[in-house]
C-alpha cells in the first residue's frame, strides 16, 4: 500500500522522465524479451509451416545429439581457443595503442594515426575477408613476406590449419584496434593531471608514469570490458569464419557459431541450432557471472 503510493507520487512528479524511458523499455520487451519464448523450440521438432503448436515435443533430444555428436569437442575447443587468442592479443592491442597515443604530444601525428587505425572499422566484413584472401594467396604479400622470413615454400596460407588462428586474430586486430582504443583514450583523458605533476616532482620517468598512474587509473574500464569479453567467449561471429575457412582448416576453424549456421540456416534444423545456441548462451552467462564475482572480490569493480 505504502510503496505503491510512493511510486504513484514519484510518477506524477517525474512523469516526463518516465515517458522518456517508455520507448526503450518497450524496445527491450518487444525485441529482446519477447522472442525468448521461442527458446522453447529447442525442445521441439519445430516445423515453421506446421506452426509451434503442431510441431512435436522431443524433450532434450537436440541437446543430447549435440553433446554426443562427432564434432562437439572440436567446435567447443575451437571456439574457446579462438577467443583465448582474441583475449590475449585482440584485447590487449587497443590498450597498448591507447597508451602509446597518450604519450604522443604532436597533435597532428596523433590524429593521423588515429584516423588510419579507425578506417578498417568502416570496411564491410566481406571486403575485409576478400582482402585477407588476396594478401594470403599463393602470391600474396603476406605469403611472400613469410617465405622471405622463414625461407620455406608456402602456398595459400588459408590452406594451412595452423595459420588459421593467427590470420583470424591479427586481421581482427587490424580491423578493430583503432576503434576499440577510443574508450581507453577517453578514460585516460579523465585522469587527474595533478597525479602526473606529483610524479614529475618525484622524478618518475615516462614508463613509470604509464605503469604507476595511467594503467591503474584506467583499470576499472579494462576490468569491465574484460568481463564483457569473457562473457562472449563462447560466442564468435560466424560470418568471418565461413568467409575464411575451407576443408583444410576445419579442424581449427569450425566453431560453434559456424556449426549452428550450417545446421540452422543451411540444413534448416531450427530446433537443433536453437538448442546449441541456448547451451552456448548459458555457458557465456555462467562465465560472465564467475568473472564478475572474481573481479568484484579482487578489485571491487563489477557489473552488478
Amino acid at each position, binding site marked *: 500500500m505504502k510503496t505503491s503510493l510512493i511510486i504513484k507520487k514519484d510518477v506524477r512528479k517525474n512523469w516526463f522522465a518516465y515517458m522518456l524511458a517508455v520507448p526503450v523499455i518497450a524496445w*527491450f520487451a518487444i*525485441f*529482446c524479451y519477447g522472442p525468448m519464448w521461442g527458446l522453447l523450440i529447442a525442445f521441439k521438432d519445430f*516445423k*515453421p*509451416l*506446421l*506452426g509451434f503448436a503442431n510441431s512435436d515435443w522431443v524433450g532434450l533430444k537436440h541437446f543430447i545429439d549435440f553433446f554426443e*555428436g*562427432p*564434432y562437439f569437442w572440436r567446435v567447443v575447443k575451437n571456439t574457446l581457443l579462438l577467443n583465448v587468442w582474441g583475449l590475449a592479443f585482440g584485447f590487449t592491442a587497443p590498450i597498448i595503442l591507447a597508451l602509446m597515443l597518450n604519450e604522443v604530444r604532436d597533435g597532428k601525428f596523433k590524429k593521423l594515426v588515429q584516423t588510419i587505425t579507425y578506417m578498417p572499422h568502416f570496411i564491410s566484413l566481406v571486403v575485409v575477408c576478400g582482402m585477407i*584472401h588476396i594478401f594470403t*594467396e*599463393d602470391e600474396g604479400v603476406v605469403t611472400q613476406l613469410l617465405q622471405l622470413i622463414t625461407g620455406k615454400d608456402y*602456398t*595459400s596460407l*588459408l*590452406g*594451412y*590449419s595452423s595459420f588459421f588462428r593467427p590470420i583470424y586474430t591479427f586481421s581482427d586486430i587490424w580491423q578493430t584496434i583503432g576503434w576499440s582504443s577510443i*574508450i581507453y583514450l*577517453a*578514460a585516460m*583523458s*579523465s585522469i*587527474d593531471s595533478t597525479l602526473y605533476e606529483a610524479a614529475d616532482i618525484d622524478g618518475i620517468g615516462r614508463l613509470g608514469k604509464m605503469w604507476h598512474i595511467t594503467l591503474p587509473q584506467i583499470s576499472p*574500464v579494462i576490468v*569491465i570490458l574484460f568481463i*564483457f569479453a569473457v562473457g562472449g567467449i563462447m560466442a564468435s561471429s560466424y560470418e568471418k569464419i565461413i568467409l575464411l575457412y*575451407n*576443408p*583444410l582448416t*576445419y*579442424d581449427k576453424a569450425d566453431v560453434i557459431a559456424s556449426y549452428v549456421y*550450417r545446421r*540452422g*540456416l*543451411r*540444413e*534448416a*534444423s*531450427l530446433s537443433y541450432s536453437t538448442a546449441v545456441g541456448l547451451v552456448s548462451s548459458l555457458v557465456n552467462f555462467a562465465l560472465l557471472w564467475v568473472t564478475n564475482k572474481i573481479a568484484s572480490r579482487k578489485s571491487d569493480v563489477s557489473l552488478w
Partner: protein
Amino acid sequence: MGKMKNRLLNLLLVSAMSVSVLAACSNNNDPKESSEPAATESSDNGTTTETAAFSDISQTIRGNKTPTQEQMDEVNNTMNDTYLGDLYDEKIPSHYEAYPFKKDVTLDVWLPADSNIPDMNNQVVQKQVEKLTGIKVNFITPPVGQEADAFTLMISSGELPDIIIEPERYPGGMEAGLKDGAYLDLTDLMEKNAPNYSEWRNSDETRRKTTVTDSGKLLGFYGIAPYSEWMWFGMLIKKEALEKTGLEIPTTMDEWHAFLTKAKEVGYSEPLNYGSTYGQVFTGIINGAFGVWDWTFMDADGKVQWGPAQPKAKDYLTTMQQWNKEGLLNRDWATADFNQRMASAISNKTAVMMDSPDTMWSYWKQQNNIDFVGALNPVLNAGDKAATTYKNFKRTGRSAAITTQADDVEAAMAWLDFAYSKKGWEILNYGEYGKTHLVDDSGKPYFQPESNIYKDPDGQPVATTLVKYRMHSWPDIRDEHNSNPLIVAEGSYSGDIRKYWTENMDTSVAMPPITFTQDEASREAELGNQLSTLRGEYFAKIISGQLPVSAYDKFLSEAKNMGLDEFLSIHQAALDRYNQR
C-alpha cells in the same frame, strides 16, 4: 572537473555496452527481397483469343530467313505452332485451351536467379510467356550466393509464394515439404490442370519413373529432357600442350603422369588444375579410375556403395599426394574459387582443366582463342573402359512446386504447364522468333548468325546471352543439344566432346534419382553432411601432405562411427523403392 569527466566516461561506457547489446538483439537481418512489382504493362495481351484450329503457316515460316514484322507477330504473339516440326521420338503436346487465362492473376514465384540476370521480371522470354498465357508473374529472387540461407529464412517466416522453383531445397526433399505443409500434392490435379505436362511425362517410361515419388505422388513439375543429355564434365586438354609435349591424349594413370610431367618440363608450371568449383577435389574423374567415386554409386551387384570407403582409396591418395609433391597440380587447388580457377586456366601455367566443355569453350576458345580436346576419364590399366557416375535420366533443368499458400492453384499449374507445350518448348529454348531464332525447312528452330544470342546489342558474351534471351535451366522440355548456344555456335566443338564422352564411358555405376521418405531424409541429410565434411577434410589434408596416407584408416573408422552403414542402408532402401516404381 575530474568528476565531470568521470561521468562522461561512465556515459561512454554505458553507451558502448548498450550498443553491443543492441547489436546482439537486432540480428534479424532480413535479406533484401527484390519484390519489385512486375513492370506495369498496359498491353492487354494483344493476342488473338480464338483457340480454335490455327491456319497452317508452315509454308511461310519454315525456311524463311527474312520474316516480316507481321509474320514475327503471328509467331510471337499467338499460340499457332503449325510451323514447328516433330523432332523427337515422342510428340510434344499442344494443349492451349487454358490460354489466355480466364482470370487476371499475378503469381509470386521464388527463384534463384542467374547472376547475369539480376531482374528476372524483365527477362525477354518471361515477358513473352506472360503475354501468351495471360498470367502475370512476380519473381522473388534471393541475392546471388545466398540462396540457401534465403530459402530457409523464407520457410521459417511461414510466408510462401505461389510457386517455388528448386523446391527440392526443402530440408528432407519435396516429400518432407509435403508433410510439413509447404507443398501441394498435385497427383489428382495434374491430368485436368496440366494436360501438356501429364502427356509429356507419360510419353516415356524413364520420364514417368523419375517424376513420381516412391509412394506414387506427383509433387511438382520437373524439367524433362526429350533425350538423355550428354555428360557435361570431364578432362579437357589444351591442344597446344599436346603439340608441345608431342604426346598422345593420355588414357591410363601412368600415361597421365607421364603427360603432366612432360607438360611441366615444357613450361606449364602447374599443369593440372585440380579440384573443381562443383566440389573441391571431388570430380569423379581421377578418383573414379580407382573406383573411389565421389559419393554413392552402384556396384556390379546393384548395391549402393560409398566411394571414399572403397579398397583402392589409399592408392588414389598416394598417387595424388605424389602428384601434388611433384608440382603437377595447381598450388591453390584447395582454396581457389571459380574466378581464380578460370584465371589460371587461361594462363600459361595450366595445361589441363577438369570442367564443362561448354564453359571452357567460352573461356578458352571464344574469349582467348585457346583450342582444346576432351579426354576420357583415366583408367588404371590399358584396355579398361573409362567410367563415370554422371548419367542423365532424362531429368534436367529445374523443378517447380506449388505451395500450400498459392491463391490460384489452377493458374499456377496453367503457367507451369505452358512450358511443356510445343509453343512453350520453342520460346523457352529458342527465345523470340525473328530476333533470336528462325525456323528451318524441317520445322526446327535455330539461332541464325545474326541472332542476338551471338550478336548481343549490349555486347555481352554467349555465356550471358544464353540466359538473357532464352531459359537455360527451367522446369520445361529442355532441348540442350540443339538449343544450348555454346554447343550449337558456329565452330563450337563442346557438344562433340560431350557426345564423345557419353558414348565412350561406362555409366553402370551411376545412381538414378532416388528419393527419401521424410524420416529417412532428415537422418540422411545429417549423416550426409557429417560424412561430407569428414571426407573433404581428410582427403584434402592427405593430398596436400599435411597428413600421411595412413591417416586414411582413421578416416574410415571415424566414418563408420558416424554411421556410414546406416547411411548406406537408407540409400539402399530408397534405391529398392525406386526400382519398384
